[in-house]
C-alpha cells in the first residue's frame, strides 16, 4: 500500500511540472485545425510539425492543434496522416503573434501495403482502424485508442465489448473478464499482447484477464476472426491482440486522473478485514516440512470482519513518448494505476430436480453472498525501438502487470432440502455463515525482443524471443463456518463454531518462446504481387500449483458438545492436520506444455483478387505430475498430438471502397493444463476437477464477409460463418456437490455445429455518430440426459438432448451513439450492449440446463475540453444496474448485482 501512495504522488508531481513549464512567456504561436478535405470532418492525432525540426504538435480529438514557443521566422509546415497525402506549406511567423492556419488534407488512394520499407502507420485513431480492417488479409475488427478514449472504457475488457461479435464473460464478484468471440467462450480464443501470448496466473484461464489491462496503454485492439497460417492455430473463435502504444514521431505526453465510486456502497457498507494479519508464509514455508503447526500459529484478525464506508476508487495514468537520435530510437513508457473498490451482492441457489413434481428443478440451498473487493492494478509498459536504417528495426517491449486483490466474502447459506439442518418450513432450519477473507498478488512479466529486417530486395525476416512469467500468490485464504438453527417457532440457537480452513496457494506459469518468419515478396505487373512466407515457433511452458491447507476444528466442551461461538478472538481450535496438506494433496502439481509449430504461407494479389493460404502444423506435448498420497494411473500423464491446419482466404476488391471476403480454415483449442490434472480447483462459486481424458478441440471454419468503407470513419460489414467443432470442451455438473458449490468436470460431448451472421455499421451524421453491430449465432450439440424415468429393468432412461454450446450467446448487439460538438469541444457517448441467454452449465436432467439470462448494459461517458491541454472526463457504467442472473427454466439459480459506478476526472495532454 505504501508503494502505491508514493506512486500517486509521483504522478501529481509530474503533472505539476508540465503545467508549470507552459506558464513561461512565448514568442510566436501557430494554431488551427486539420480536416478531411472530402468530408470536412476534423482529423484527430494528426502530426503537424516544422520540417527539419523536432518542433510540432498533434491535433486533439477535435482536430485542433497549437504549436507554441516558436522562434519567429519562416517555416515549412508539414502534416503527415495515414490515408492522406502529405501536406506542405511555407508560413511566416512574426514575433508575438498568433497565426491561424487551417489545413485540409486530401485523401490518398495509395495502397497502404508497404513493400520493402518498414513503414509505420498511425493506427490509434478510428480512420486508420478502418484502414487496417479494409486492408487486412483476414477478417478483422479493430478498435482504436481514440475510440476507447471517447468511451466509458477503463480497461480493455470494456472496450472489447463493443467490437462486433465479441462479448465479455465475467465472473461473479470480481471484475475479471475474458473475451467471447462469436459466441465462443474464452477457451476457444486467444489473447495476445503485442502479438504474443501472455501467460496467465489464473488457475482457470489460459489468458490474462482483460480487466487488468488498462485501456490507456493500448494503441488498439485487433480482433481477428479468421486465421492466416502465420497465426497460432489455437483460436477457433478468433484472436484478440492488445497492441500497446508505439513510440510516436513527436513528443507525446498524456496523463489522466480520476476518482470514482460504486453505487452498491450507497446501500451497504464495505466489509473489511485486517490485511496485515494475513500471514504470507504457511507454517511449512516458515519452519520446514516437519513443522507441526500449533493452534497459536494461525492469526485471528483476518477473520474479524468489520464494516466501513467504501473508499473512493482512484485511477491515474500517464504515457510519455519521444524519439531520440534523429528519430532512430523511440521510447514510450506508460503506466496505469487503478485502485478500485467494488462490490457484488449475490444470491446463489443450489438447485435439483424434484421427482415429485415432474422433475422440475427446485432450490435445495439458498445463499446470500456479499463480496467487497479492492483491486489494485498497476500496468507498466515500456517500448524501445531502434530503427537502424530503413531496412532494419529492433524493438524491445516489456509489459509488467501487477494486481493486488483483497476480498471479503460474507455468505449466509440455508439448506432447504437435505443437509443436517432440518428445515421444516420457510424461515427455519440451520443457517450457515461462511465468511472468507482472501488476498492475492499477481505478477505478470512479459519481455519481448523482436526485429524486422529487409535482408535483400525481396526478402524480409522477422523474429522474436519472448519471456513471459505469471505468478499468483494467495496466502492464507481463511474461511470460517458458523451455524445456528432457526427453530420452527422462529427462535434461534446461539451460533456454533463449525470449522476454519486456511489455505496457502501459489501458482505460476512460465513461457519461453521463439519465433521467426521469412518472407519473399515481389510485384509483377501493375496491380499484382506475390508473397511467400515461412516460419516457425517453439514454446516451452511450465506451470506449478502449490496448495497447503490446514483444517482447524473447534475444541469441544467437556461433554463432547461443540462449543458456541462468540467472537473469533475467544474461539478455541485444534489443528486437525498439523503438518498441512502440502505433501499429500494432489493439487500440488507441476505441468508442462511444449508447442512446436511451422507454416508455409502464400499471398497472391491478382488485380482485384487477393488469395492467401497455406498450411500450419502444430505439435503439442502436454503433461503433468501430481504428488499423490496414493499412486494411481492418473498421477502422471503425458499427451501428444499434432494438428495439420490448412487455410485459404480470398478477398475480392469489388471497388476501392468495398471488399468481399471468403475463407476456410482449420483451428484447434487445447485444454488448459489445470483441466487435465485430476485435482480439485476451488473457485469462487464452483469447483472444478481436472480430467486427463479430455481431448483437444478441432474445428473447421468457414467465413464470408462483405465490407464497405464509404467514407473516413464509416463502415458497413455483413458476414456469415459456419464452424464444425469436434470435441468442444464443456463443463458438466457432477452428481456430487462439493460442499455447497457445484462440482464441474471438463468433458467432450461430441461435435458442435455453429453458424451465424453479423452486421456492422458505423456512420457520422454531422455531429452525431452511430456505431452498431449485431451478431446472431446458432449452435447445436447433443448431450445424453437423464429423463427421470426408468425402463423395465429399472435402469434410468437416457435421451439425447440438443442444446447450444456452453458459453455461446445467440444475439449480441452493441450500439453506441456519439455526439461531438466541435465548438463546445465536448463529446458524449452512450453505449448499449445486449446479449441474449447463454448456457452456463450442462445439467444432467433432460430438458433442463443452466442459462445466464439476457442482459442489457448502458453506459454514458462524456468529455469536455476546458483548455488546450486539459479536458474533464466523466463516465457512468452499468446505468441499468443489470443483474447477472442464471436460471434453470424459470427458476433463479444465481443472481449477482454490481450496481452503477461513477467516475470523474481530468486528462492532460501535451
Amino acid at each position, binding site marked *: 500500500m505504501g508503494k502505491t501512495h508514493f506512486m500517486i504522488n509521483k504522478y501529481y508531481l509530474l503533472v505539476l511540472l508540465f503545467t508549470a513549464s507552459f506558464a513561461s512567456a512565448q514568442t510566436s504561436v501557430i494554431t488551427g485545425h486539420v480536416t478531411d478535405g472530402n468530408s470536412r470532418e476534423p482529423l484527430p492525432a494528426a502530426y503537424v510539425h516544422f520540417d527539419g525540426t523536432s518542433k510540432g504538435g498533434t491535433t486533439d480529438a477535435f482536430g485542433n492543434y497549437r504549436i507554441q514557443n516558436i522562434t519567429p521566422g519562416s517555416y515549412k509546415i508539414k502534416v503527415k496522416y495515414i490515408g492522406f497525402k502529405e501536406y506542405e506549406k511555407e508560413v511566416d511567423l512574426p514575433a508575438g503573434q498568433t497565426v491561424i492556419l487551417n489545413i485540409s488534407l486530401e485523401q490518398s488512394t495509395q495502397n497502404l501495403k508497404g513493400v520493402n520499407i518498414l513503414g509505420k502507420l498511425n493506427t490509434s485513431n478510428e480512420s486508420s482502424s478502418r484502414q487496417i480492417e479494409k486492408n487486412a488479409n483476414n477478417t478483422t475488427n479493430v478498435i482504436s485508442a481514440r475510440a476507447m478514449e471517447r468511451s466509458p472504457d477503463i480497461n480493455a475488457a470494456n472496450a472489447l465489448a463493443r467490437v462486433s461479435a465479441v462479448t465479455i464473460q465475467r465472473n461473479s464478484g470480481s471484475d475479471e473478464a475474458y473475451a467471447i468471440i462469436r459466441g465462443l467462450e474464452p477457451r476457444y480464443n486467444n489473447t495476445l499482447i503485442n502479438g504474443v501470448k501472455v501467460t496467465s496466473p489464473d488457475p482457470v484461464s489460459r489468458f490474462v484477464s482483460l480487466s487488468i489491462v488498462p485501456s490507456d496503454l493500448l494503441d488498439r485492439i485487433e480482433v481477428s476472426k479468421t486465421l492466416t497460417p502465420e497465426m497460432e492455430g489455437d483460436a477457433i473463435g478468433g484472436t484478440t491482440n492488445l497492441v500497446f502504444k508505439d513510440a510516436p514521431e513527436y513528443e507525446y505526453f498524456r496523463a489522466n486522473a480520476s476518482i470514482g465510486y460504486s453505487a452498491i456502497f450507497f446501500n451497504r457498507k464495505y466489509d473489511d478485514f485486517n490485511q496485515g494479519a494475513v500471514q504470507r508464509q504457511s507454517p511449512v514455508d516458515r519452519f520446514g516440512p516437519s513443522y507441526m503447526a500449533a493452534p497459536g500459529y494461525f492469526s485471528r484478525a483476518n477473520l474479524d470482519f468489520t464494516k466501513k464506508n467504501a473508499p473512493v476508487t482512484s485511477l491515474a495514468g500517464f504515457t510519455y513518448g519521444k524519439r531520440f537520435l534523429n528519430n532512430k530510437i523511440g521510447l514510450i513508457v506508460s503506466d496505469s494505476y487503478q485502485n478500485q473498490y467494488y462490490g457484488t451482492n449475490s444470491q446463489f441457489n443450489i438447485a435439483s430436480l424434484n421427482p415429485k413434481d415432474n422433475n422440475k428443478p427446485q432450490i435445495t440451498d439458498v445463499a446470500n453472498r456479499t463480496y467487497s473487493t479492492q483491486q489494485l492494478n498497476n500496468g507498466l509498459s515500456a517500448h524501445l525501438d531502434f530503427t537502424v536504417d530503413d531496412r532494419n528495426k529492433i524493438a524491445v517491449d516489456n509489459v509488467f502487470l501487477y494486481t493486488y486483490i483483497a476480498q471479503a466474502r460474507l455468505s449466509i447459506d440455508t439448506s432447504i432440502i437435505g443437509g443436517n439442518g432440518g428445515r*421444516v418450513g420457510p424461515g427455519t432450519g440451520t443457517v450457515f455463515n461462511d465468511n472468507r477473507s482472501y488476498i492475492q498478488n499477481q505478477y505478470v512479466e512479459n519481455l519481448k525482443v523482436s526485429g524486422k529486417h529487409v535482408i535483400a530486395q525481396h526478402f524480409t525476416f522477422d523474429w522474436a524471443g519472448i519471456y513471459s512469467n505469471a505468478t499468483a500468490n494467495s496466502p492464507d485464504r481463511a474461511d470460517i463456518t458458523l*451455524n445456528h438453527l432457526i427453530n420452527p417457532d422462529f427462535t434461534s440457537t446461539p451460533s456454533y463454531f463449525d470449522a476454519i480452513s486456511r489455505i496457502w496457494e501459489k501458482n505460476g506459469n512460465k513461457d519461453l518462446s521463439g519465433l521467426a518468419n521469412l518472407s519473399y515478396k515481389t510485384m509483377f505487373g501493375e496491380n499484382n504481387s506475390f508473397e511467400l512466407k515461412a516460419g516457425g515457433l517453439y514454446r516451452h511452458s511450465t506451470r506449478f500449483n502449490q496448495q497447503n491447507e490446514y483444517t482447524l476444528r473447534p475444541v*469441544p466442551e467437556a461433554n463432547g458438545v461443540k462449543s458456541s461461538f462468540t467472537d473469533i478472538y475467544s474461539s478455541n481450535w485444534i489443528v486437525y492436520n498439523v503438518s498441512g496438506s502440502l505433501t499429500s494433496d494432489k493439487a500440488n502439481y507441476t505441468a508442462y506444455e511444449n508447442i512446436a509449430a511451422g507454416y508455409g504461407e502464400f499471398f497472391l494479389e491478382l488485380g482485384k483478387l487477393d488469395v492467401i493460404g497455406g498450411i500450419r502444423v502444430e505439435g503439442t506435448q502436454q503433461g503433468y505430475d501430481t504428488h499423490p498420497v496414493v499412486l494411481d494411473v492418473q498421477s502422471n500423464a503425458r499427451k501428444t498430438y499434432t494438428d495439420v491446419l490448412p487455410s485459404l482466404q480470398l478477398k475480392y476488391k469489388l471497388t476501392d471502397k468495398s471488399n468481399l471476403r471468403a475463407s476456410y480454415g482449420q483451428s484447434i483449442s487445447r485444454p488448459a493444463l489445470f483441466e487435465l490434472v485430476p485435482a480439485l480447483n476451488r473457485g469462487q462459486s464452483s469447483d472444478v476437477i481436472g480430467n486427463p481424458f479430455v481431448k483437444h478441440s478441432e474445428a473447421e471454419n468457414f467465413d464470408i464477409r462483405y465490407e464497405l468503407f464509404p467514407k473516413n470513419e464509416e463502415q458497413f460489414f455483413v458476414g456469415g460463418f459456419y464452424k464444425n467443432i469436434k470435441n468442444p470442451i464443456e463443463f458438466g455438473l457432477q452428481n456430487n456437490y462439493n460442499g455447497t458449490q457445484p462440482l464441474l468436470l471438463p468433458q467432450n460431448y461430441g461435435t458442435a455445429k455453429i453458424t451465424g451472421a453479423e452486421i456492422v455499421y458505423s456512420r457520422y451524421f454531422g455531429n452525431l455518430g452511430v456505431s452498431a453491430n449485431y451478431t446472431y449465432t446458432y449452435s447445436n450439440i447433443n448431450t445424453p440426459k437423464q429423463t427421470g424415468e426408468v425402463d423395465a429393468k429399472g435402469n434410468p432412461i437416457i435421451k439425447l438432448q440438443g442444446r447450444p454450446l456452453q458459453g455461446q450467446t445467440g444475439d449480441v448487439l452493441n450500439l453506441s451513439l456519439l455526439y461531438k460538438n466541435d465548438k463546445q469541444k465536448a463529446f458524449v457517448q452512450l453505449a448499449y450492449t445486449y446479449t441474449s441467454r447463454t448456457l452456463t452449465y450442462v445439467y444432467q436432467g433432460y430438458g433442463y440446463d443452466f442459462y445466464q439470462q439476457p442482459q442489457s448494459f448502458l453506459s454514458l461517458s462524456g468529455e469536455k475540453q476546458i483548455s488546450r491541454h486539459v479536458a474533464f472526463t466523466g463516465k457512468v457504467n452499468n446505468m441499468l444496474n443489470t443483474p447477472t442472473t442464471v436460471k434453470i427454466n424459470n427458476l433463479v439459480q444465481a443472481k449477482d448485482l454490481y450496481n452503477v459506478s461513477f467516475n470523474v476526472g481530468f486528462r492532460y495532454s501535451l
Partner: protein
Amino acid sequence: MKIRNIYLLSAIVTIITGVFSCKKAEVTTFTKIKIPTASPIAPGNISGFVKGTLLTGQTYTVTGDITIKKGDTLSAQPGAVVIVKNNAQFNVQGVLNLLGSQDNPVFFNSDTNKPGTWGGFQADSAQAITIKWTHIDNTGGPDAGGGARRTIIVNARINVDIEDSWFSNGQDDLMGLFGCHVTLLRNTISSSGSTDGEGINLKSGATGVVAYNVIFSQAGSGVKLETNPIVPLPQTEVDVHNNTIVSVGWRRGSAEPGRSVSIGVNAIGHVYNNIFVNCYHGLEIFPDADVTHTTYGNNLFYATVTTFTDLRDATIQINLRDNFYPAGAVGKPQPTDLISAQVGQFDPMFVKFDGTVAAPNGYPNTNDFHLQPTSPAYGAGNASFDSKRPELGNLDLGAYTTDGKGNKH
C-alpha cells in the same frame, strides 16, 4: 403258550433290534491334509498395493497407505490383527473380505489406540465389501486436505455386507454408503464422530436393510437416509428395524441436532421396532422425504432425564421428550409406538445403562443393551412390516430379541 410266545417274540425283536443297531452310518475319513491359504500375506510390515489373505493369529503393521487394486481381493481370516501406523488408510478399488468369527474376530486399530488416528477404508470405487465379526476402532484421521475421513466410504452400486462387527471412536460418518445395496446387521457402533458425522449414512439410491444394530453416542444421527438431490433416481429405500439407538446427536451442537433416524430428500424409509433412548431428536421425517412411501411404527421412545442443559450456555435447555417426533417435521406419533410421557414410563429396561446423554467422542461404552425380562419392548413389535419383504420384522423391539435373530454382542 401265549405268554411264552410273547416272550419269545419280544426276545426275537430284541435280538433283531440289537443286531440291526450294530449298523453304523458310513463315515468317510480323509488323511489330514491342510489346504494352504491362497496368496497368504506374510506377517510384519505391509503397505502399497496389497492383495491376498491376512492370516489367522498373525499381526500385521500397516506402515503406509494400502491399495487393493481393481480385481484384487484382500481377505482376513478369523483372528488376524492389523495395526495401522502413520495415519494410513486402505484404498479399496477391488474386493474387501474381512471374515472374523464370533470366537475369533479380526482386529483393525491404530498403533496409538487413540480416536482419529488412522484412515479407515476409502472404498469409493470398490467392487464388493464384506465385513463380519471384525473390530474397527479409532478411524477418521485427517485426509489429504485436512478433513476428517469417514470410516467406511463407498460410492458405487455394489453389495456392502457388514455383520456382527464393532466400530468405535471414528471422527466423521462411520459408514457412508452411497448408492450401495446394504446388509447391515447386528453391528455395534460406539462413540463415533468428533463434532459431526452420522453412524450409518445412506444416500444416493442406497437400498437394503439396517437391523439389529446398536448405535451409541454418535455425534450426528444414528441412521440417515437421503436421495441425492440432483440425481433423484434411483431413490434411497431402506428398512430400518430392530436397532437400539442410544444417546446420539448431541456433539454437533444445537444448530444441527442429530437424530436417532432421519429421512430426507426424497428417500423412503420403513422404520419399525427400534428403541430410541436419550437421543437429541428421535425419528425425524423431513418434509422433503418421500413421505408418501415412508412407513413407520412400533418404535419405543424413551429418555432417562427430562431435560439436557448445555454446559456453556445454560439457557439452552432441551426437553428430550418434546423431540421424539420433532416439531415441524412430518413424522407423527403412531398408535403402535411406545412413547414415554415421563421418566419411568416405557423404560426399555436395559440390563446396564449409565444414563449418558451427551458424551465426548471416544467415550467408553460399558453399557449392556440387552433387555431385562420385564421390558415393555417384548412383544410390542411388528413381525412383518414390509409387504415386499415379509420375512423382515420381529415380535420384539430393539437389537436384542428373544428369537435369537438379534445382536450377538
